Structures are given as C-alpha cells and as structure tokens.
C-alpha cells in the first residue's frame, strides 16, 4: 500500500482539488462564462435604463440620486471582491490550491477598479450634495484604505521573481486586510459620519422606496455577474498562459538536454 492510499487527503481538500485540474476548470468555466457575461450585461443595462429614466428623483437630492445605481453596486462589489480575495488566500495558504493563487491575482486589479469607481462616483455625487469632492469621513477613508490594500496586493503578487512567493505574500496581505471590511460596514454606525447609514440591511426591511430599490438590486446583480465574468475570463487566460509557459520551458529543457 503506498503512502497516498494509506493517508488520503481530507474530504474538503479532495473536493477542492478536483477543480484544480486546469483542463476541468477550462471546460466548466467555458460553459459558465457566456451565461455570466450575458446576465451581467443584460441586468446592468436594464438597471441603468430603469434607474436613469423610470425611477423617481429624490425629493432632497433631485436627479443626483441616480448616481446611487452606479455607486452602491460598485461599493458592494469592492467589499465582496476583497472577501473573495481573502477566501482565495485561505484556499491558497491552507490547501495550496493552485487555481486560488491565479484567481486571487486576477481579482486584485478588477477589485481595485471597482473600488476606484466607487470612490470616484461617490466623489461625483458628493460635490453637488455636500459641496465637496472629498471629506475625511470614516466611511470614505476606510474605502480608500481598501483601495490601497488592493493596490498593495497587485504590487506584491508581481514583486517576486518566484511567482509562488508573490502569491504567498499577497495572500498574507489579503488576510490581514480583511479586518478593514467590518470597519467599512460599521463605520457609519461607530462614528459620526457625513456618509448616510445603510438603507438596506440583512436584519430589517429596507428604508428605501421600492421604485428605487428594484433598479438598485438589478444593477447590483448585474455588477456582480459582470465582476464574476471578468474575473473568470482573466483566470481562464491566466491558466492558459501558465500552460504555455510550462510547455515552452519543457521544450527549452528538452533542447538543452540534446
């Protein structure tokens, strides 16, 4: 009896590693990707049209409230993107899952872009509503920290000649940065902020008019599918690029051996 049969990997590890096979990942993601892309585009466009032309204006903010249909989904995605980065980091550090490393490296830039979009649209809304492009409010500052965490992850993953070291350093940074997520979420409750408190909560009914809530939820769903589709497409490309590098290196070694 060999060592592998005598000590099989734990059940969770076995299930996770079934999806570490690049061929299987490319096959499954190839089927899922078009569905995600179509859902992302369709839901986002529907939400945008609904939010821009059919949802009512706010009695205080006027039509500037329509910026919310871009700002809020990008803010949610900034946090959820970082959470997925942290999950990939756990998979990488605990189970050494090779696809988790690639996925984490691809989530970083997309998450940074969505966080930048959240900050920029918040700023665009803030100018006419607060009279300032930026205030050092707890919510805004913690989201800015999230943006820097994303940038740090992107830089760290690419900072080493040995990619494995980069992935490991990035994973550690991603896990340390998770502490910022509850700070972002509860900053409006813990501190006296200019940013308004949450209007949609897990624990209670939303305080938002339903005619504004539906387009917002459509946009949030569309952004989520769009984010997932972009990350999946980038991860597919990264898997193929790694296979290309492996094949070219094997050929070079064969040529050297002759």
């Amino acid at each position, binding site marked *: 009896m060999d060592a592998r049969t005598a000590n099989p990997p734990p059940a969770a590890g076995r299930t996770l590693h079934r999806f570490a096979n690049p*061929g299987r990942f*490319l*096959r499954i993601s190839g089927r899922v990707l078009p569905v995600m*892309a179509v859902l992302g585009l369709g839901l*986002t466009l529907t939400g*945008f049209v609904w939010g*821009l032309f059919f949802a009512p*204006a706010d009695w205080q903010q*006027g*039509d*500037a409230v*329509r*910026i919310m249909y*871009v*700002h809020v989904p*990008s803010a949610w995605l900034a946090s959820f993107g970082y959470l997925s980065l942290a999950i990939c980091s756990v998979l990488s550090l605990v189970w050494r899952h090779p696809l988790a490393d690639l996925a984490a490296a691809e989530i970083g830039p*997309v998450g940074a*872009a*969505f966080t*930048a*979009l959240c900050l*920029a*649209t918040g700023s*665009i*809304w803030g*100018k*006419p509503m607060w009279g300032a492009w930026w205030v050092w409010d707890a919510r805004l500052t913690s989201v800015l920290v999230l943006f820097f965490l994303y940038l740090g992850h992107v830089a760290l993953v690419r900072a080493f000649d040995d990619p494995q070291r980069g992935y490991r350093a990035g994973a550690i940074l991603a896990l340390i940065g998770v502490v910022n997520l509850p700070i972002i979420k509860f900053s409006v409750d813990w501190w006296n902020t200019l940013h308004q408190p949450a209007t949609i909560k897990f624990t209670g009914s939303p305080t938002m008019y339903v005619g504004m809530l539906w387009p917002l939820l459509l946009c949030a769903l569309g952004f989520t599918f*769009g984010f997932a*589709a*972009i990350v999946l*497409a*980038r991860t*597919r*490309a990264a898997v*193929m*690029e790694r*296979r*290309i590098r492996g*094949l*070219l290196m094997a*050929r070079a070694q064969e040529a050297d051996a002759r």
Partner: protein
Amino acid sequence: MTHLTYIMAAYGLAVLVGTVFSVDAWARMSRARRRLAAIDPRANRG
C-alpha cells in the same frame, strides 16, 4: 434632469471601467487560446 453633468460622468465612468476590463479580458483570453493552440495541438480538442 438636474445634475446632468454629474450623472453622465458617473455612468460614463462605470461604462468605461466595464468596457476596458471586459475587452482586455476577452483579448487576453483569445490571445492565450491562439498561442496555446499553436504550440499544443491537444489544446484544440479541449
């Protein structure tokens, strides 16, 4: 519509970010698929 410039700027940025990342991901995927097919004939079957 009030604050039209601000609204257009916000939606324009969203469309720009979405388009840039989607096109980049699609182009990168196509490039990798072509290169892989060129050096590994088995890739065409997968």
